[in-house]
């Protein structure tokens, strides 16, 4: 087929489709929401670095007073998610399911819930019908209405199980700053975390279930080249840490890490020393 014929064919597509493109207004997530999402991911990573002692490999889900929200109902057919624990049977979104793969739960960890109405917006109505019955305080409400995020305890999350509107993220808390001085104290290879933030959040809108995972992997792989170009990263060295947060991990030489951190554009790169005992085994 020649190009002219293809162009002519596109010129003959249904007018409804052409009209749709003229009037289409995608559901927008507020900048605050995006920042909240990015912050949650950063905190998660930072938390892994700062609070390794919280990770107790001997913990089991059954030992915790409140069940971790896991994957049973939502992804019962996915063997990876079922590694968490067969007893976990609360529906959550794929994002957390992926992060929780092989996760060892710790009581101190907090979970946050974002709730959206049918139009993709968080609103007072949603609060009233979904979150207020959980006994959240006025401070929670203010926070929720401001950035669409509320903090729930595990018990509260248990109560709202199976709500398709819930989007749960976990937050380890804490921050860490990696400096040149810090690097001087470290020997051997470093575990590097890269938070790519390549617009995945927006791109994932409309993708659900298993397709959401494959889409996210494909999307990130495709866009990782931007980081390769900017920072000399090699995609083959990196593994997915949290696919939906666009986060990767790799072990790199200390010199390479120093080089990466010297680049002002690498603000999203975090590191932790590689110990004999992994901080967290994903």
């Amino acid at each position, binding site marked *: 087929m020649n190009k002219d014929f293809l*162009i002519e064919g596109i010129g003959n597509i249904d007018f409804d489709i052409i009209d749709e493109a*003229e009037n289409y207004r995608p559901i927008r997530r507020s900048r605050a929401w995006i920042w909240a999402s990015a912050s949650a991911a950063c905190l998660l990573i930072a938390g892994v670095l700062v609070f390794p002692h919280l990770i107790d490999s001997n913990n089991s889900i059954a030992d915790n007073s409140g069940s971790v929200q896991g994957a049973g109902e939502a992804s019962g057919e996915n063997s990876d998610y079922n590694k968490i624990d067969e007893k976990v049977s609360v529906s959550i979104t794929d994002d957390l399911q992926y992060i929780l793969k092989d996760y060892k739960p710790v009581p101190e960890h907090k979970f946050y819930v974002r709730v959206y109405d049918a139009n993709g917006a968080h609103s007072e109505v949603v609060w009233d019908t979904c979150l207020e019955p959980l006994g959240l305080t006025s401070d929670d409400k203010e926070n929720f209405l401001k950035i669409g995020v509320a903090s729930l305890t595990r018990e509260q999350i248990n109560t709202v199980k199976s709500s398709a509107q819930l989007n749960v993220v976990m937050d380890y808390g804490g921050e860490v700053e990696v400096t040149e001085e810090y690097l001087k104290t470290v020997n051997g290879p470093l575990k590097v975390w890269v938070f790519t933030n390549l617009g995945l959040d927006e791109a994932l809108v*409309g993708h659900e279930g298993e397709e959401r995972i494959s889409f996210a992997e494909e999307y990130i792989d495709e866009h990782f080249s931007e980081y390769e170009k900017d920072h000399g990263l090699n995609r083959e060295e990196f593994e997915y840490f949290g696919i939906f947060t666009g986060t990767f991990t790799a072990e790199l030489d200390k010199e390479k890490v120093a080089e990466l951190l010297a680049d002002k554009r690498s603000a999203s790169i975090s590191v932790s020393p590689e110990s004999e005992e992994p901080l967290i085994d994903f």
Partner: protein
Amino acid sequence: MDDTSIIELYFGRDEQAIRETAAKYGSLCLRVANNILGCREDAEESVNDAYLAVWNAIPPAKPDSLRAFVWKIVRNQSLKRLEYNTAKKRLSGALVPLSELEEILTDGSPPPDVSAEELGRLISRFLDTQSADARCVFVRRYWYFDNVSDIARRYSFGESKVKSLLSRTRNRLKQFLNKEGYNI
């Protein structure tokens, strides 16, 4: 004035029909033409040619949607002029999106009995299976010939997302057409 009344003016051979058409759809027509030609002067000429073509076509044509009818003629007129400009090696606006479409092409030929209208229906069927984001971005790029940054701004997407959606949709369209027996 509504479309039915404008079409009646065309049938009555009243030149007010062209003025009404221009008043109602002129701005978008000019935008599409300008996207394709990359030159305001050429775009205006192309749109004027399109109005004349509409005048000559109605009657006998009695389009269900005047807007679609006019847009399509503007697009075709502009692409024709683009071809002319390219042959004359004049700078053109839509060469980049057109070259992107070459990714979909192969050395094969379409079935001999396939018309552009049928191909349009097939592409419409394909687009119906895509997400609204992908569909609209594709149409903005290859029907309206908007540039990537304009699409990103219009839909509040990042440019990387727009590029990604376009690349994926082109690949899927190629697979779809091959599967449907269109050896392109």
